[in-house]
């Protein structure tokens, strides 16, 4: 029997984790904070993949493992499947989620009126928002990397925000 987890608790925990690492532990070193958050995600993904692959046959190639991430793994974690999977057949996969659950409730500060800036204020605000948001994506990136590496695929995962709440994860498998 599956256990249930309160979704709002998870949301708050993620928000708190990111803010604690970014503003308290590593306030001056955002790269270090990102690495720490990614490492937590890695451990989570590592353990989840062990559990979710329990009743299934072994994967014969990388694509099968990626498909497992897109379908079963994503449904277990986010209650939906990945919306779009692209690959160049040379070890790069792009997983697109049109409504990523952990970004769905994020809001961006409206651009503040500040005439003295040389740049377009709305573009600047958007840029800043993307930066802030990307901090929240290190955790799911780590989850994907942890799950795949436990399945024997070492890879690097990065995330892109195209337009909220859509986002895509880029998986590069190391040869």
């Amino acid at each position, binding site marked *: 029997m599956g256990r249930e987890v309160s979704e709002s608790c998870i949301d708050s925990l993620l928000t708190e984790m990111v803010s604690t690492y970014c503003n308290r532990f590593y306030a001056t070193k955002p790269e270090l904070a990102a690495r720490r958050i990614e490492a937590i995600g890695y451990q989570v993904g590592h353990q989840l993949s*062990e*559990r979710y692959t*329990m009743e299934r*046959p072994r994967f014969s190639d990388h694509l099968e493992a990626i498909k497992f991430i897109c379908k079963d793994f994503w449904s277990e974690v986010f209650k939906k499947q990945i919306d779009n999977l692209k690959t160049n057949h040379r070890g790069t996969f792009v997983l697109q989620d049109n409504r990523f659950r952990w970004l769905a409730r994020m809001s961006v500060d409206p651009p503040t009126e500040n005439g003295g800036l040389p740049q377009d204020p709305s573009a600047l605000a958007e840029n800043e928002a993307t930066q802030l948001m990307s901090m929240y994506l290190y955790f799911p990136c780590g989850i994907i990397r942890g799950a795949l590496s*436990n399945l*024997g695929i070492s890879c690097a995962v990065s995330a892109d925000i195209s337009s909220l709440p859509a986002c895509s994860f880029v998986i590069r498998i190391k040869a």
Partner: protein
Amino acid sequence: MIVCVAVVGHQNNPLYIQSFTEADDALKLHHIVHCSLDVVDERVNNPKKSGPMLNETFLGLLYPTENYKVYGYLTNTKVKFILVTTDLDVKDADVRNFFRRFHAAYVDAVSNPFHVPGKKITSRTFADRVSSIVKSFGLSSTV
């Protein structure tokens, strides 16, 4: 009767090995487990022609010795489970059932946030659970 169970990591590093005999034959059992690792590798690298069984986690009987039968199981995460039993007429279904429960116990043990992946499993809860699974092995068929 099950005399030994073992969990072996993906680099053939022992994660958990436990024998269930009174006699002082732990070394012999370790040797049997050790030998079985090669058989597992062989099975996985040269899969039999049988189609549907191709990538099943349950590897079946690895090899029989005079006194023991050795069964294997390989998870998706390349962790091997080895079972050594003295029963010479074992039902496949019993072994499958054993491995399923054993796998569940293993998953719970490694999901412990204090467990370090790739290190030996030291959890007492896991040990207790394993010995209760081992005790109940084969009982279902007699009831």
